[in-house]
């Protein structure tokens, strides 16, 4: 017997006799004999619950985890503090065992939460409309580019090299096969080279979108206002890839005129999860709403005039428009977006600003301490948020990271992996979770002190 299958032998016999079938095997008679599996699957035998838990604990112990090891690694996924409340809410099984709210009358919980989520994302980004979530930051940016192509009728996209390298890879996968040209805009001092952007815009006829990230991959705050103005001058849309925590203190995309805001939502109450599940957010100006992919929730009334919520503008979507849909997305990352909604409710107007200020202060503290050791030098001399790049004067980053690991810490990213020209460059993230003591120990170990 299996605990997830309630049918007893007696039940099965009763059902078979009602159907008029002699055996369960008979129900599979449409499957041609020669393609039926005549053996058991070659898989490990079933485990009882206690055995399973021990097995999984053993595998989990093969990982170094950030709960036990202070983490200075970021690069798109950040070790922020998650209030206990978040886990409690998303563990309510009325939320996590439901599906897409196709029947609004018994899905008001999910629908209202998404409506609150859309409102929060719009308030953070300064945009008019938001969808209910995308798979992650990378696919949100790629879909934003497709949106821009659809609404401008143009087929080229410019993307800054300051955008997360993996996002650019995903963008290429999505765009190239759809016949969309991608060109990259270079960097200057860790920031997007705006002269280069102008050259690219004037050189390339018919650019649909310019994609910049701020803070960019190096943590540097880009001049989004100038880049947006430039894009608009050439009739291109601006896609701003932004960090949601930074938006508590940084100018929102809506204010500098971006047409689409997209990004990774993980920093809002979602665990690292070895890269997923997280969620992407996608918000835009009102005029683009019918070009947006994914679920969108709207307010309406029931037959007695009471407020309620439904999935709306569905004629954009695959289940109605099939090959003419704006995207193929069906399942999204609703539960992760719910976690973000709870997180933002907990943090609120003041708390999120404090998180952002703490990240800012602590990362600047770590930065100046590292430089003061004389073992590191500046890479980008520009304002940054939460994350920064430094160059080690004489040691490969791998050596430094190994030393940190020996002392129970998780070091930063070796930038050379994505930017071959950035030898010995190290990308370090410092969230509000890192204490002064941890940062001091980190700096000491990084500088090789006590060798």
């Amino acid at each position: 017997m299996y605990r997830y299958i309630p049918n007893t032998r007696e039940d099965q016999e009763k059902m078979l006799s009602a159907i008029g079938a002699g055996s369960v095997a008979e129900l599979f008679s449409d499957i041609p004999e020669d393609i039926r599996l005549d053996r058991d699957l070659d898989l490990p035998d079933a485990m009882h619950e206690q055995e399973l838990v021990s097995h999984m604990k053993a595998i989990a112990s093969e990982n170094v985890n950030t709960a036990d090891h202070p983490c200075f690694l970021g690069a798109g996924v950040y070790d922020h503090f998650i209030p206990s409340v978040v886990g409690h809410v998303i563990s309510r099984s009325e939320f996590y065992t439901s599906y897409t709210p196709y029947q609004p009358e018994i899905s008001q919980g999910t629908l209202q939460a998404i409506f609150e989520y859309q409102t929060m994302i719009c308030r953070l980004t300064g945009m008019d409309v938001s969808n209910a979530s995308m798979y992650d930051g990378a696919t949100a940016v790629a879909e934003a580019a497709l949106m821009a192509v659809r609404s401008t009728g143009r087929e080229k996209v410019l993307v800054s090299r300051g955008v997360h390298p993996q996002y650019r890879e995903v963008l290429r996968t999505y765009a190239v096969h759809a016949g969309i040209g991608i060109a990259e805009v270079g960097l200057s001092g860790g920031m997007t080279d705006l002269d280069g952007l102008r050259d690219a815009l004037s050189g390339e006829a018919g650019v649909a979108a310019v994609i910049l990230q701020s803070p960019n991959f190096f943590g540097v705050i880009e001049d989004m206002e100038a880049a947006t103005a430039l894009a608009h001058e050439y009739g291109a849309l601006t896609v701003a890839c932004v960090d949601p925590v930074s938006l508590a203190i940084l100018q929102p995309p809506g204010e500098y005129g971006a047409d689409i805001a997209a990004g990774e939502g993980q920093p809002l109450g979602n665990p690292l999860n070895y890269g997923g599940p997280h969620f992407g957010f996608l918000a835009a100006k009102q005029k683009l709403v019918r070009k947006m992919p994914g679920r969108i929730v709207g307010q309406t009334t029931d037959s007695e005039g009471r407020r309620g919520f439904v999935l709306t503008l569905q004629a954009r979507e695959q289940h109605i428009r099939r090959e003419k849909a704006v995207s193929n997305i069906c399942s999204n990352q609703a539960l992760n977006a719910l976690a973000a909604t709870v997180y933002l409710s907990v943090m609120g107007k003041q708390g999120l600003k404090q998180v952002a200020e703490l990240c800012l202060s602590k990362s600047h503290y770590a930065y100046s301490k590292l430089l003061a050791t004389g073992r590191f030098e500046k890479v980008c001399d520009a304002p940054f948020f939460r994350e920064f790049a430094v160059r080690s004067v004489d040691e490969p980053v791998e050596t430094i990271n190994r030393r940190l690991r020996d002392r129970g810490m998780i070091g930063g990213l070796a930038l050379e992996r994505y930017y071959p020209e950035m030898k010995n460059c190290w990308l370090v993230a410092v969230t509000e979770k890192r204490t002064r003591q941890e940062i001091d120990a980190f700096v000491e170990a990084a500088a090789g002190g006590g060798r």
Partner: protein
Amino acid sequence: MEIYEGMKFTKEHEWAREEGGKVYIGISDYAQNALGDIVYVELPETGKKVKAGDPISVVESVKTASDIYSPVSGTVSGVNEALADSPELLNEDPYENYIAVIDPDDLSELEDLMDEEEYREFCSREE
């Protein structure tokens, strides 16, 4: 609602009618009925060149969306702006409310379409 004298119909349930050398295009009563409550009409851009059979507009209800094809070749010379705010006009009186106006290259393309009687019969076979 009244069907105009000389109104022509397509197999996709659009109507077309000539007035002053221009061709007005809309959807038939059968079409609006099949779609149900219309919630949005995507209007074409004026000045756009179209060939007969090209999609020029999309009419959406809550659960479906239907492409509207131009029955004639030519240039879009006008759209019914009232539909932007009041798409339900297509439900209320589909023959009074056009979607777009085309400056046709060749008016004789209209002759290939069904007249009212042929269209009625066509619809009765669709049922």
